[in-house]
């Protein structure tokens, strides 16, 4: 059984230590300069990666520490995709700058690849870069240019392919496409359409690619991602997805989001182990991942760290039991 984190992580410390929040405040008040701000970001990235290493995770994101939100690197790397006004991030008290399509999308690249290189260089744990997938990008963007959904969507898929390609040489472990919009029903393509889009998206690159579904119904989309290396599901919101995954062996590795990324309460590691064991037997220990149900940034930093620590405990229990 493998463990990982799958998204954003708190940018502030649980105790003392570098804090993006404080650094930005001091930068805006003029008491530190660009170098000190940059160095703080780097130090927080390092701390986030160190937490993953201490927990012996098998993969981790860099916590998206430099990111304003999940669309931030796309808005920086794609010409004519601009960061717009704040909107609620699904049913969370978190707000993202919704992307605005102002002209025909062109991939320029540079920012995310640089951030990925920085994280890879600082990480003892294989690095995952999690990006919003095409259905989520399209569903949450405001189109002020195309006024033609199929044409816009086709270009979104192409620029995302180029973004993934730009990461191929950075040393990352995988690109993870997040599709909460599918899970919550903010995007509703047919299953066949989703399957075709993902077949095209994933086939364009040699980098390992996975898909993450969270905050809604994951079960109904599993068949859309047969070409993915791993499909991660939110088993907290959609408990029924475990039944689906147990009913047949899907052709991809499975990621079980069993730790509630929006609840401060810690799960019982023994109960988690009992949930995971049958899947390890069915899929093979190398093909089963356990992770939080989503990124941990919606938790206070101490609780987020405890959830990562719980993954370490869980792994230890399962290794002792031979799973």
């Amino acid at each position, binding site marked *: 059984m493998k463990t990982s984190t799958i998204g954003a992580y708190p940018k502030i410390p649980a105790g003392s230590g570098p804090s*993006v929040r404080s650094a930005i405040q001091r930068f805006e008040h003029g008491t530190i300069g660009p170098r000190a701000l940059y160095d703080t970001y780097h130090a927080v990235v390092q701390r986030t990666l160190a937490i993953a290493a201490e927990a012996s995770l098998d993969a981790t994101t860099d916590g998206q520490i430099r990111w304003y939100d999940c669309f931030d690197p796309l808005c920086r790397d794609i010409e004519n995709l601009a960061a717009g006004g704040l909107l609620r991030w699904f049913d969370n008290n*978190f707000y993202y700058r919704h992307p605005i399509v102002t002209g025909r999308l062109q991939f320029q690249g540079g920012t995310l690849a640089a951030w990925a290189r920085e994280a890879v260089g600082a990480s003892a744990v294989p690095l995952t870069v999690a990006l919003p997938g095409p259905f989520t990008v399209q569903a949450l963007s405001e189109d002020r240019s195309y006024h033609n959904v199929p044409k816009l969507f086709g270009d979104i898929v192409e620029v995302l392919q180029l973004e993934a390609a730009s990461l191929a040489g950075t040393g990352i472990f995988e690109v993870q496409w997040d599709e909460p919009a599918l899970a919550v029903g903010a995007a509703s393509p047919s299953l066949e359409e989703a399957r075709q889009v993902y077949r095209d998206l994933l086939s364009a690159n040699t980098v390992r690619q996975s898909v993450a579904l969270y905050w809604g119904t994951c079960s109904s989309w599993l068949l859309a991602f047969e070409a993915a290396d791993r499909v991660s599901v939110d088993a907290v919101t959609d408990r029924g997805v475990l039944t689906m995954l147990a009913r047949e062996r899907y052709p991809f590795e499975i990621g079980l989001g069993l730790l509630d990324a929006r609840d*401060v309460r810690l799960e019982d590691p023994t109960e988690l182990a009992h949930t995971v064991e049958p899947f390890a037997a069915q899929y093979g220990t190398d093909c089963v991942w356990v992770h939080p149900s989503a990124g941990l940034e919606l938790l*206070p930093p101490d609780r987020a760290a405890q959830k990562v620590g719980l993954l370490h405990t869980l792994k230890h229990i399962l290794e002792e039991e031979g799973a």
Partner: protein
Amino acid sequence: MAKTLNTTSVGSFPKPASLMEARTRYRRQEISSAVLRVEEQEATRAVVRLQEDLGLDILVHGEMERGDMVAYFAENWEGFGRSLPVRSYGNRYYMKPIVEGPVGLGQAAGFTVQSWNQARALTNKPVKGMLTGPYTICDWSFNTHYRDRRALTLALAELVHEEAQALEDAGAQYIQIDEPAISTRPEEIGLAIEAMGIVTRGLSVGTISHICYGEFERIYPALLDLPVRQLDLEAANGHFALIDLIARYPWPVDKELALGVVDVHSHRLESVDEVKAGIRKALEVIPAERLFIDPDCGLKTRTWEEARQKLQVMVSAVRQVREEEGLA
């Protein structure tokens, strides 16, 4: 107060550096609560003075005593534990409370009246009493005690009602119950309405609910059933698309609309003309006597000068529209 297009503000104002420092020193136990209160009162005085100087019709006290609109109540009521901060956007964080036991007023019954009273004493204009709604307090807290969100929301509604009653008893003419989380889960709009019915039960003052940064189309027109006299909605951030939504349904004759006309999350200063355009668009669907004008949300994320300038633009736009349209 004018008869049409009354101007107001939503709630929070930027805290001056001296107050921020005092709050830090208080947390470090370097100063007493009495010293902190003096700083808060001085800052409140400045907020009231600014609004009077600009000519706003209905004032707010600026929430100088509050760090966060939910944590403030959690810190004063029973049943809540504290957590470390959680980010909500950009570089804004809030202390997301943890409900660990039955919620109750404890010793804090009527605790919001004091700050309202202090502001009221500084002006002859009406000052809004400011509360956070039960649905939002529930949604922005971790719940480790109540069996479900409904049970927690309704328990909180009784507490908010007690605060609202205390403000009315103290003489508040307007009580604003902020519910920014109300559009979070459209399937729970009925619960939010039920909870607001508990909050406003038996009140005779003007009740307002401020709602922002949500997808209004997901809860419209059900939102019109929220039992308050005035809906205070953010519109500038969405380039006034809100008004297109409102125009699809008859505006209730017993409801007022407060329209957010400046974006509080942008450093950019709006022009008077673009604010006027937003107001004129709203006037096409809401009668002037039931249309109030304010910023999109609380101004605490702006600098003092940005807040002043945005309010100035807002007031100038309202005056020009009143004059050009021949409104009183």
